[in-house]
Each structure stands twice: as structure tokens, then as C-alpha cells.
């Protein structure tokens, strides 16, 4: 077993290595062949290969010395206008040495940039197009201002399909000499549903237990990484305890960093799985969709989700009355 983060160790190096997002990868390969890249937006959920695609493209373009031609900046660590003014501009305006006349600036988590910073970025993008191409990476492209969107080629990344996630995890298991059972794979998909980074992190943490990786191991790992689980929270609402459910929600978001979009997704699954009256399911789906949209717009995760929890409490109450 090796002692790095596997998500990093097994990150594909070239576009050819990338297993998923086939159409996107084909388009990027054609950029690499023609040695020209437009400004791009890579949008999609976490763990679907956005950053990897950007790094692979750079390596295919510039070869192994790609580090000198690319800069990665993470908007959630430095998202102010000054960063755009100084760091980005300084990098963007200096011409690249070599055959390809432009450099690549990767702005990760660009949807976390303030709108002021985005405005500043827009001008920088225009002014230094000759010397620098931008790849903006975001979970929600809707949080990127319209003028920037219209200057970029959009690429929409989607969650990995089951078989691709499995293939990747099997490959790692083989290289690391793990015993990974089929039910373990089932469980990883259930827990991570196509977020490959999380799936690999789960696998690595499971491997640290030094025993065959079955469903139980995976669930216990996932449970310990996010101790308050969504199913339990929904049960709490159904029993009419809003305050306790809100506390669980708060812990999930604040303490364990579970993404609001992730919680929403799980609630959505649970609603249709559970034994609510059929009419309620579709009524609640509408609420879930609305809340999901608000989160994309940038509303407060806890406040929005607790509005959904209150609806669930209401549903549980009606259900109890009917019985």
C-alpha cells in the first residue's frame, strides 16, 4: 500500500487516461491537437473530473514542463477583487515562452468569486486573450456572471456512471492489493453516487482498517465521515421533532462539511423511497426542486433546507392524523 492520497496518486495525467466525460474529453483533445484553446467554463458537481481535465489538457499542450505554463488559483481561498487585480493580471499579461503563445490560468471554484472580482476578471480576460486563456471551474455555472459565461466555451460535467466508477475503484484496488468485494462497490456507489474523489477517499479510509472491504466497512466509514445521516434526519422530522432535525442539519453542514446540494439529493431519493402517501411525494418533490434551485442561486443552505424540514414535519403530522 502506498502512502499518498490515492485521489491524487491515481489522478489521470493525460486526456487519454481519462475514463469518463467522453464527449468533453474528445473536444479537449481537439483543442490540444490544434494547439489552441478558447476560454472555458467547466461546470458540474464535485469529483467528476473538472480540475483533472484542466490539468490533463495543460499537460497534453505543453508536455511534462506544463507547470511553467499554467497557474492554478483557488477562488474560495482567495476570492477578492485584489487577487484578480494583482495575481491574475501579473500572470496573464506576460507572454509565454515556447511554441504556444499563451498560458493557461485555471480558476478553481470560480463560483465562489465575488461579483466585483468577476467583473474585474472579465476585463482581464478580454485584455490578455492573446497571452492567457482562462479555464473557470465551478459547481454552479449560474453563479458566474453572464458576460463571462458568454465569453467562454461551456463544458458540463456529470456524475460518473456506475460502471465507470466501479472500473476505476477496481483498478486502484488491484494496484494497492486490496480485497474489495462486490457488495463493497455497491455500497461505495450508494454513498458517493458518482463523486469519484469521495469514492476514492472512502476506499482509502476503508483500506486503513486492513480487512476485506465489504458493505459494512464502507457504511461505517461513510457514517463516521458524516455521522449525522440524512435518513435519520428525515425520520426525526416525521416524528415531529423539528428542533432536533434542524440541529442534525446544522451539524451536517457546519461540523462535517456536507454540501447542501448533496443533502438535497439524498432527501430527494429518500422521499420517493419512503412510504409517504403518493400525492405527498410529488408535492414534496416540488418543494425540493425549488429549494435546490435557491441553493444554486446562492441562498443560505441551512435556512433553505430547514424550510424543507418544516414541510416534512407537516407531512409527518398529516400522515399521523390519517392513521
Amino acid at each position, binding site marked *: *500500500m*502506498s*502512502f*499518498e*492520497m490515492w*485521489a*491524487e496518486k491515481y*489522478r489521470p495525467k493525460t486526456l487519454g487516461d481519462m475514463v469518463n466525460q467522453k464527449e468533453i474529453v474528445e473536444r479537449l483533445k481537439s483543442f490540444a491537437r490544434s494547439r489552441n484553446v478558447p476560454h472555458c467554463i467547466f461546470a458540474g458537481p*464535485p469529483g467528476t473530473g473538472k*480540475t483533472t481535465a484542466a*490539468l490533463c489538457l495543460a499537460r497534453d499542450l505543453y508536455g511534462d514542463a506544463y507547470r511553467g505554463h499554467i497557474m*492554478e488559483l*483557488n*477562488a*474560495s*481561498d482567495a476570492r477578492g477583487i485584489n487577487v484578480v487585480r494583482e495575481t491574475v493580471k501579473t500572470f496573464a499579461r506576460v507572454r509565454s515562452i515556447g511554441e504556444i503563445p499563451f498560458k493557461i490560468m485555471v480558476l*478553481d*471554484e470560480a463560483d465562489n468569486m465575488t*461579483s466585483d472580482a468577476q467583473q474585474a476578471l472579465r476585463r482581464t480576460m478580454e485584455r490578455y486573450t492573446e497571452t492567457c486563456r482562462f479555464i473557470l471551474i465551478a459547481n454552479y455555472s449560474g453563479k458566474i456572471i453572464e458576460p463571462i459565461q458568454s465569453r467562454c466555451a461551456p463544458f458540463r460535467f456529470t456524475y460518473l456512471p456506475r460502471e465507470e466508477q466501479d472500473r476505476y475503484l477496481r483498478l486502484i484496488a488491484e494496484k494497492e492489493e486490496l480485497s474489495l468485494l462486490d457488495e463493497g462497490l455497491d455500497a461505495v456507489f450508494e454513498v458517493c453516487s458518482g463523486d469519484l*474523489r*469521495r469514492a476514492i*477517499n*472512502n476506499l*482509502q*479510509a476503508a*483500506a*486503513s*482498517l*486492513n480487512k476485506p472491504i465489504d458493505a459494512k466497512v464502507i457504511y461505517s*466509514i461513510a457514517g*463516521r*465521515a*458524516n455521522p449525522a445521516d440524512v435518513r435519520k434526519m428525515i425520520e426525526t422530522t416525521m416524528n*415531529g421533532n*423539528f*428542533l432536533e432535525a*434542524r440541529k442534525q442539519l*446544522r451539524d451536517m453542514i*457546519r461540523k*462535517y*462539511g456536507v454540501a447542501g446540494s448533496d443533502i438535497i439529493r439524498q432527501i430527494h431519493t429518500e422521499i420517493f423511497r419512503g412510504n409517504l402517501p403518493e400525492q405527498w411525494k410529488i408535492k414534496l418533490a416540488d418543494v425540493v426542486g425549488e*429549494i435546490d434551485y*435557491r441553493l444554486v*442561486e*446562492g*441562498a*443560505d443552505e*441551512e*435556512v*433553505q433546507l*430547514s*424550510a424543507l*424540514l*418544516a*414541510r416534512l*414535519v*407537516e407531512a*409527518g*403530522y398529516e400522515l399521523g392524523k390519517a392513521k
Partner: protein
Amino acid sequence: MYAAWVYKHKPKSLKRVVGNREAIQKFVDWVKSWEKGVPKKRVAFLYGPPGIGKTVTVEALANDFHMELVEKNASDYRTEEAVKRFAGLASQYGSLFGGKRIVLLDELDGLTGTADRGGVRAITEIVKTAQCPVVLIANNAYNPRFSNLRKYCLLIEFKKPPTSEVMKHLNRICLREAIQVDEDALKFIAQRSVGDVRSAVNDLQALTQGKKRITYEDVSWLGYRDRQEKIFTVLKMIIYGKTCVGAKRAVDMADVDIDMLFEWIYENVPAHLTDPHDLARAVDALSIADVYRGRIRSTQNWSFTRYVIDYMTAGVAMARQNTKVHGWIPFKFPGRIRMLSRSKAERAMQLKIGHKIKRKCHISAVRASKEVLPYLRIIFKNNVDMAVGLAKWLDLEPEMIEYVAGTKKKAGAITQLLG
């Protein structure tokens, strides 16, 4: 005898002034430069937010340097005439009794309107010809009214001291008053004051009346004691309001800002609205208010604030259709705010580790601290070899290893193998 602690424990020496070391040094250097004759800038203009020790600094300096302090504040120099009368004082360095003199014009912000314009002009005159150190103090030196005056002044900015400095000061007072205050309670007071030392000291005094020991619980409640009654009334007006207008009016009574009021309402609505339909409607109204907050952020159009207010007050009031007004249910301090101040140190540590992960993993420090750290914890707990490898690979420092491992023992085993 009851004495206000802000006066009783006012720093008598520069050594004791909270924070602002740089600004103080700059100020001291300037005062010392008078020994070698009149310097180029005859006036020092100290500026910065209220309660952070500008006046105290001047007083402490006068004390340390045995200078005679001539102090005037806004009300003393509202007009040109008043200032001129006062001007003579600044005309000589030495005072009648042989000591050195320093002149302080405090609260310059107090000069407002056209009536005072002569006052600023007269001060500008003094400033040009002063024969002894003259110090001006205002919150905002960049007020256009001072633009002419500013040219003749050495500008010295005072900043809000960090929480740790404020805490040190509070601690000293606790020692001298022989009271025992838990550290997180003290931290809460310091943080709540956001750098305003004066208000922090006032709060401390208000909180400790008659007590010898103060815990965090006392503070989180009583921290709002003066405001508590007010906020309770406000919350009652909103949650049990019968008319939209009545509920909306509550906002004017609240002396917290809109976001804080939102937190108070959001925290307390569920305990009061026991009917599930009422509760769902109320939380829904709050969620719409929140949507408008988001719209304000993205459009920077602050006039949308009125809709935020509509939904968080009238929206909540109108939600109550079935719940009766019931007996006394206490209002609670917003939990999300408390969580924020309590786990600050922990979040800082997580972020530090996040930065280490970021260097290796092409992921932001914030995200790494939330998404990768939990898995590291599991690995560090279960597998020392793997932990050692990862600690090395990520270049984690001992304190980080201890945090990830959770226990000193585990961390010890890992560090030992690291060599």
C-alpha cells in the same frame, strides 16, 4: 465605591495600551522629534474607529513623558472665536511651570454642519503655526471637511486590536478586581466588542456585577442583558404579531442589524410555533427572506432589503394561525452565531491542515478541510503506517498530527515513527 472600570483601569502608561503597537511607536517618535526643534509636521492626526484607545494613548504618553496635557473636545471649539481663544496655549512648547506641553483636540468628528466650518478653519491656522505638539483625534480623517487640514498633519491610523489583545486587557482587569471569568466567556466578550475595547470593558463590568465567577453560559445570556429585554419584546411583536404593520414596526425597535435579527427570529420561531402548519409557513417565510438576501448580494441592490424585512417579520407573524399565545417560553441566543464564535480556533486549525492538503491535491483549503480531513481522521485512527506516510507526504506539523489523530497518545506514536 462604584467607579466605571473604563476609567478605573484606564492604561496609565503606553506599555499598557491595548494593541496598535506600530501606531503608538510612530506617535512616540514624532513627539520625541520635538526635542530637536519644530518638526515638519507640527500636528499628529490620530484616527480610527471608536473605543480603541486613541485618547488613552495620548493621555498615557503625557503621563510617561511627564508632559502637561491640555485637552479640549468638540464642544469646546465649535466656533472660530472659541478656537482662537484656545490658540494661545499652543503657541509655546514649555508650559508656565517648565514642563513640556502637549495639546489635544479630541472628537473632531463632532464638528458638523456649516456652523462649525469656521472651527475647522481656525484649527487649520493653529496647526500651521503650532509651537508645541498638537494632536487631533477623529474617527474618520478622510472626511472631506478635513481635506485641507490633513496636509499639515502626520496621519496615524489606529486599528481595531485583535481579540487576543482585548482579552489580555480584560484579564488584567479581572485580576485586579479579583474576579474569575472563564476563558471562553472572556473571549465571547472580547469578540462581541469587535475591537472596541471601551465597550468590552463596559460589558465586562456590567456582567460581573456582584459575582465572583462568570461562566460562558452567563455571558451568552447576559451579554445581551441590556439589549435582551428589547430583543425579547421585538421577537414577541414579530412571532405573535397580529398585523403586518405591527410586526414590521418591530424592526425599528430592534437595536441589532437585520442579519442578526434574522438569526434571532430563525432561532426562536420553532420553539414558539408548535403547530406544524404554522411552523412550515413561518420557516418558509424566513427562507424567502433569505432568497431576497441572496438577491441583494448578487445585484447589490439594497432596496430589496424591504422585502427581506416583509418576509422575516410580517411573513412570520401571518404564519401563526393555529398556535395559541402560550405561557413563557424563553428566547434563545442564536445558535449559529454562538457556534461561529466557539469553534473559531478549531476552524482555524482545520483550515491550516486544509492548506497543507491543498498544496498536494488541487483542491481549495476550505474544501479540503471539509471533504478530505474527515477521511484522514479515520486513517490516522486506524492505521499508524498509513498515517505516518500521509503525514510525511502532506508535510503535517506536530500540532496538526495531534489534531487529526485526536489523542496525544496516537499522535505520539505517529510522530515517533516519523523520526
